């Protein structure tokens, strides 16, 4: 991360999911928006998001899932981060997270309870992510500076 960067992000598609196109577009757009992006690509196990975040001292992990198995793949993700010493890292998740026609509110709540700070529905535009992300990172840094 250079001083000019708005923060270092880890992006990737979790689990046995090969849908990479949307994730590439998102990663590229966030880079253009001034973030440092470490893009892990498709088929990424949860542990590799965490390993990458440790080495790069990342501010946030952005998990994509587009094949309906996201709930299984993301279970225990926050705990994995806590075990690795990343207690206060920002976690975002987005995509087609569950199978079937479930109300978005219940999906969002379920992933928030799993420890994700923000949950994004299908059809999210990159600009919908970069704004909140910059604010959240700035807030975390301010908190850390106080302690």
């Amino acid at each position: 991360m250079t001083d000019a960067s708005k923060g270092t992000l880890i992006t990737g598609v979790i689990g046995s999911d090969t849908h990479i196109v949307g994730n590439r577009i998102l990663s590229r757009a966030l880079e253009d928006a001034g973030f440092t992006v470490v893009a892990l690509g498709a088929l990424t196990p949860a542990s590799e998001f965490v390993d990458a975040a440790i080495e790069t001292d990342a501010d946030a992990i952005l998990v994509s899932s587009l094949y309906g198995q996201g709930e299984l793949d993301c279970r225990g993700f926050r705990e994995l981060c806590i075990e690795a010493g990343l207690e206060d890292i920002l976690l975002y998740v987005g995509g087609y997270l569950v199978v079937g026609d479930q109300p978005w509110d219940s999906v969002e709540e379920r992933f928030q309870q799993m420890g994700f700070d923000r949950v994004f529905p299908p059809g999210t535009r990159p600009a919908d992510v970069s704004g909140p992300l910059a604010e959240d990172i700035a807030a975390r840094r301010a908190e850390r500076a106080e302690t």
Partner: protein
Amino acid sequence: MALALLIDFGSTYTKLRAVDLADGRVVASAQGPSTVTTDVNEGLDAALANLEGAMGGAGEFAHRLATSSAAGGLKMVTVGLVPDLTAKAARMAALGAGAKLAGTYAFELTDADVAAIVAETPDMILLSGGTDGGNRKVIEHNATMLAASALACPVVVAGNRSSAETVSAGLEAAGKTVIATENVMPRHLELNIGPAREAIRQLFISHIVHAKGIDKARERLDAVLMPTPAAVLKGARLLADGHAGAGGIGPLLVIDIGGATTDVHSICDGEPSQSGVVYHGLPEPYAKRTVEGDLGMRHTARHVVEAAGDAAFTAEAGLSIDEVATLLQRTEDDVEWLVENAHEIAFDRALAATATRLSVTRHAGTLETVYAATGPVTMQRGKDLSEIGCVIGTGGVLVHADDPAAVLTGALAGADAPLSLRPRQPKLMVDADYGLFAAGLLADAAPEAALALARRSLRQLANEEGEISHGATAAH
């Protein structure tokens, strides 16, 4: 006739080769005892007297170069952050520089870790951690711990560049010798071990050669350039790639079985050979060396049998379990033991083939099929060695084996590990005149002669079907 004198100060012998610089021919070979513990010159004198005898007079040498594996070799400890990332990159850098690893550490060092490192009395530490601009906390913590320790050896710093100055200053203030160089993993999954390897080599020349007492012979040498395993790796690379784009034999694998350890070197890009396979994880070096500290012919023979399993080993050797037990005891009672009768020869061959199979399996990459929603996807971790053209045995165990082809066959792809990317149909060869070490040593001073030397040393072996090839595949 312009000659080069190439010397290996080994742990048992001082080995010499006189090489004709015009055509890479070994004019004479000789050896003397290893006398590093007293005065390195004594063994060198004895070896030189033997060489003069073989040459029929004293030679005039245009180059006098040496490697060293004496006095424990180059013993290193590596420290990184995440085990599969910078800690692994640091390990690969040290092994590529010819080191013997006395410990590899990840995450924050504890007091107990530092005590264990000090107790190992390493010759050098390689300290890494964090991508450039990434984690600083852990490498800075580890530097502070090492600075406060009783450790006297030099430290190569090759981590997060944002921390390099802080880390170096802290270690220097505590009186340590430090070389700071580029990060072994500057960006996530970007391997950059060349600069660290070069820093290790510089420190080896400037500090370790003196610390080991080898510099007592300095007036009789141009330089002690590198640890012996680094010369083998360099020689292997020259043999594969050729010089100035010509004369190489292409991707290859080198196996060197010793009494305690087995070294494997691969020279190839290792990228997937089948279409549709996705590479996963930290890339591995083009010239990659691994050392298996638990696989050798004598000191660690019991581990070889244990790792293979009694049933597999007895089947491989054609011996009963009791016979194997008796012979294993012998390897421990007398590490210098040389086999004589047919049973003993079969035992040694099985040990060597098993050490080869296990060490190449650990060196090679693997495939894994993941069932994605869109269908199966094949992922590769590590290097794909399946298309490698030559598997070469070097070192005494393989060169003097009664049936080296049977031993080297252990390196090939097989049903024991179907997802292991070991070589499929390589030529099997031995480095009959110990030419790889010599070629690596001579590679910078006289690359063409060095390449010819390596090629002349190769002998192709009959392959599995029993097709015998000509004796030497030799020179141009």
